[in-house]
């Protein structure tokens, strides 16, 4: 994003000089933070390694387990995201409906799933429902996550729908559009754009929350890291790697989200 003047000519526009100065400050502050932070981390790491023998080699040998975990977490996140988005659209439509019963149904759903710890939902669905119906671990995990995140995504979409200017809806009505046409061609495209930033945050939450499915022995990243830790007796190394992978995944996602947001921005 830096706006260096690459043309080589002397730029006399004062506003551009100001911009360069701002960019310069940004660059300076960031390099400073990186240097100081890596220094701190190095100090902590080396003072710790005096009492704790870091053994990276042995954890590295188990990289296959991490890959398996990554695959499971990815699959789990992707499938539950699909269902969560679907749930979210339905909940948002219920919550913004003009019919009282629908509104109440939506409210009850959101009330329940936002006030219930995800861990409890997973236990309820897998062990609770699982004792009545036979539920596959994977699908138990998917539906727990989808129901839970669906409540939050529903609220995000509802806020997006309510943020569409009333005048534009009225304009659609005045043109003679049916109300479903107003919803599809005026409300939804804008509500979606408005929802992108909080939605990306919610997807990051979904990735992080998916670590809880390890309680039902679904082999996601967290469970695999624990396995590596117990088998190699190098728990700290395994969990540091785990932390790094989660951080990398959510960072990449946030980056993509920012790009998407900019591309779809209503000018």
């Amino acid at each position: 994003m830096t706006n260096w003047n690459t043309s080589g000519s002397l730029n006399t526009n004062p506003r551009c000089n100001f911009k360069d100065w701002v960019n310069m400050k940004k660059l300076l502050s960031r390099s400073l933070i990186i240097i100081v932070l890596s220094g701190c981390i190095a100090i902590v790491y080396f003072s710790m390694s005096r009492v704790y023998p870091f053994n990276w080699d042995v954890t590295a040998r188990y990289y296959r387990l991490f890959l398996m975990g990554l695959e499971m977490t990815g699959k789990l996140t992707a499938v539950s995201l699909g269902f969560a988005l679907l749930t979210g659209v339905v909940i948002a439509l219920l919550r913004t409906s003009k019919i009282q019963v629908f509104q109440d149904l939506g409210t009850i759903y959101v009330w329940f799933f936002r006030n219930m710890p995800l861990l409890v939902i997973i236990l309820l669905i897998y062990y609770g429902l699982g004792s009545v119906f036979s539920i596959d671990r994977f699908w138990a995990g998917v539906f727990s996550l989808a129901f839970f995140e669906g409540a939050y995504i529903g609220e995000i979409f509802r806020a997006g729908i309510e943020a569409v200017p009333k005048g534009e809806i009225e304009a659609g009505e005045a043109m003679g559009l049916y109300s479903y046409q107003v919803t599809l061609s005026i409300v939804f495209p804008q509500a979606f754009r408005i929802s992108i930033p909080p939605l990306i945050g919610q997807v990051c939450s979904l990735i992080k929350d998916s670590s809880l499915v390890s309680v039902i022995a679904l082999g996601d990243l967290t469970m695999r890291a624990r396995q590596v830790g117990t088998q190699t007796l190098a728990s700290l190394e395994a969990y540091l790697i785990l932390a790094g992978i989660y951080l990398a995944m959510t960072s990449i996602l946030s980056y993509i989200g920012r790009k998407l947001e900019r591309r779809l921005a209503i000018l």
Partner: protein
Amino acid sequence: MKDTVLLMNNICKSFGSTCVLRNVSFKVNRGDVLVILGRSGAGKTTLLRTINYLIEPNSGEIYFNDTKVINNRQIIRSVRSKIGFVFQNFNLISHLSAIDNVALPLVKVKNMNWRQARKQAEKALIDVELADKTLNYPSQLSGGQQQRVGIARALVMEPDLLLFDEPTSALDPSLVGEVMNVMRKLSLLGKTMIVVTHEIRFAENTANRIIFMENGEIIEDTDPVSFFNSNSVEIKGFLNSVSEAV
């Protein structure tokens, strides 16, 4: 022989306990340029909105092109598709470019495909002198330009009646002229228009009829010459307060 486009008969509307329209009746003939004047809160905007059923009246009848307008999906759709509405705050769809804003009703109500609709939309934008702004988004246009897109959006459906709800009230004084010029041009083309406005000069120069409202009632329904020479206390008071403001 004049044919009637719109007939409003004994329209009443109240919001809660406040009565906004009391037994309002009037008739609009083809080619009329009717200006509705009155103070804020006189019920002008409410009256305009009952015409295309954006507000449903409590009682009274509306006849548009000899069809009685009732609360029925199909009837309301066909009536609205024949009545162009221009809003005070433009109300353009912000994620659509100017041309798509104008093409939208053609696609959604007349079931045209986008390619055809854009062709027609472009013509409508040329009519309001925005040929070079077709691909701009509303936020990239000035208020006056946005309002002209709004007018093009109303015109593209070839309406029998155009409603203007204070089309210049949200504009910079310097931008009022361009919108007024377009409206004047439309009146010269013989379009039937009902205009709620505070622009007294438009009423003086362009209207062929003026309705003056106060407290939800029509006080006067007459031609501009006799309106501006009226002896009525209310009208004189209104005209004085307006000329003081200017």
